[in-house]
């Protein structure tokens, strides 16, 4: 039985809990606490340990969806949760302070996951803050990580179909990476050299 663990990361208020609620087939295990930082994210509660949801594949297998607490003071949970993860959905809300900076920060924080698995980025709350654009994010990431092409989508985590597109893109990315091998030179080429 393979472990399919997908991590939802990103800053406080990006929509991680909302996204897992939309994707999960089970009642999501939530660890919300009353939010005392209304100036950072104007919402009643914030995740303080994890979110947990599932998509059941069959009797044997499920895709496990874990959400991190967005606030850095819970980074010990990040360390615990990222160990088993195969890939990460990074959500960044466009109305955050310096949203592109936040995206780069979280990519760096989860760099090993970025290296071993896959990453997709969802820019949320674009109805509230239309800019920066996908192109702006892509340009900044190309500077920070020139070797990788990361899918960047605008998403509304409250829309199930959009979250599914994001999730399927991540899975496609992780899987196709394993489909390539180093080319073995043909005999004629070796002779020619």
């Amino acid at each position, binding site marked *: 039985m393979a472990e399919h663990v997908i991590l939802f990361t990103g800053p406080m208020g990006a929509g991680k809990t909302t996204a897992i609620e939309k994707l999960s087939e089970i009642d999501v*295990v*939530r*660890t*919300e*606490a*009353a*939010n*005392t*930082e*209304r100036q950072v994210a104007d919402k009643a509660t*914030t995740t*303080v*340990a*994890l979110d947990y949801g599932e998509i059941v594949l069959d009797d044997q297998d499920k895709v496990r969806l874990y959400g991190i*607490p967005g*606030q850095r*003071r*819970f980074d*010990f*949970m990040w360390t615990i949760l990222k160990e088993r993860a195969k890939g990460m959905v990074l959500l960044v809300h466009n109305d955050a302070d310096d949203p592109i900076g936040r995206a780069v920060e979280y990519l760096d924080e989860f760099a090993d996951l970025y290296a071993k698995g896959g990453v997709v980025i969802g820019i949320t709350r674009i109805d509230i803050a239309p800019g920066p654009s996908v192109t702006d994010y892509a340009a900044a990431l190309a500077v920070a990580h020139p070797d990788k092409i990361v899918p960047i989508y605008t998403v509304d985590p409250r829309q199930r179909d959009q979250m599914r597109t994001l999730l399927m893109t991540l899975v496609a990315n992780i899987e196709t990476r394993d489909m390539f091998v180093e080319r073995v030179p043909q005999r004629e080429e070796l002779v020619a050299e």
Partner: protein
Amino acid sequence: MSIPAHLDPQVKEHAARVLAGMREFAASMIYAAVLTDDGFEVADYSDGRTDASRMASMSSSVQALSDAVARELRIGTAEYVIIASDQGHVLQRRVPGQPLVLAALFDTYETLGKAIAVSKMGAQRMAHSPASEPGPAPAPTAVPEPAPADPAPIVAAVPPRDETTPRSIYAPPVSASGW
């Protein structure tokens, strides 16, 4: 919007007094903190070796996870959480009626029963914080009796082992109700 507890000087002061009171009652208490549900430290009593803000975050996560387990098993809300280890036990619980958690570390020489009792006392005193009850700080004699609905702790009345420990004005009277 009211001031969050960790930014309210009155609540912070009250919390510090509650923790000091617990310490006077249980010399085995190495570290204790009051924190907001979302992991901000309100006050701490510390040996100076513990990173109080990090502990506050961790206690908040532990509390939320314990509550999630209790919810999942449909056993009501977690009354308290114990992490028992070789060199001490951590006991934490919610402050009744407030978005606050009280966490304390006791050394292993302490009986679990007393640790539970002391932490319960602290939480009850913390419940009467000046922010929620405007006016003069509660008098030390105003220690609340356990609410009748409150389930009894596993080990209920453990008399203080060390009777020479000085009683602070915050220490509860030892009563027949055996808090």
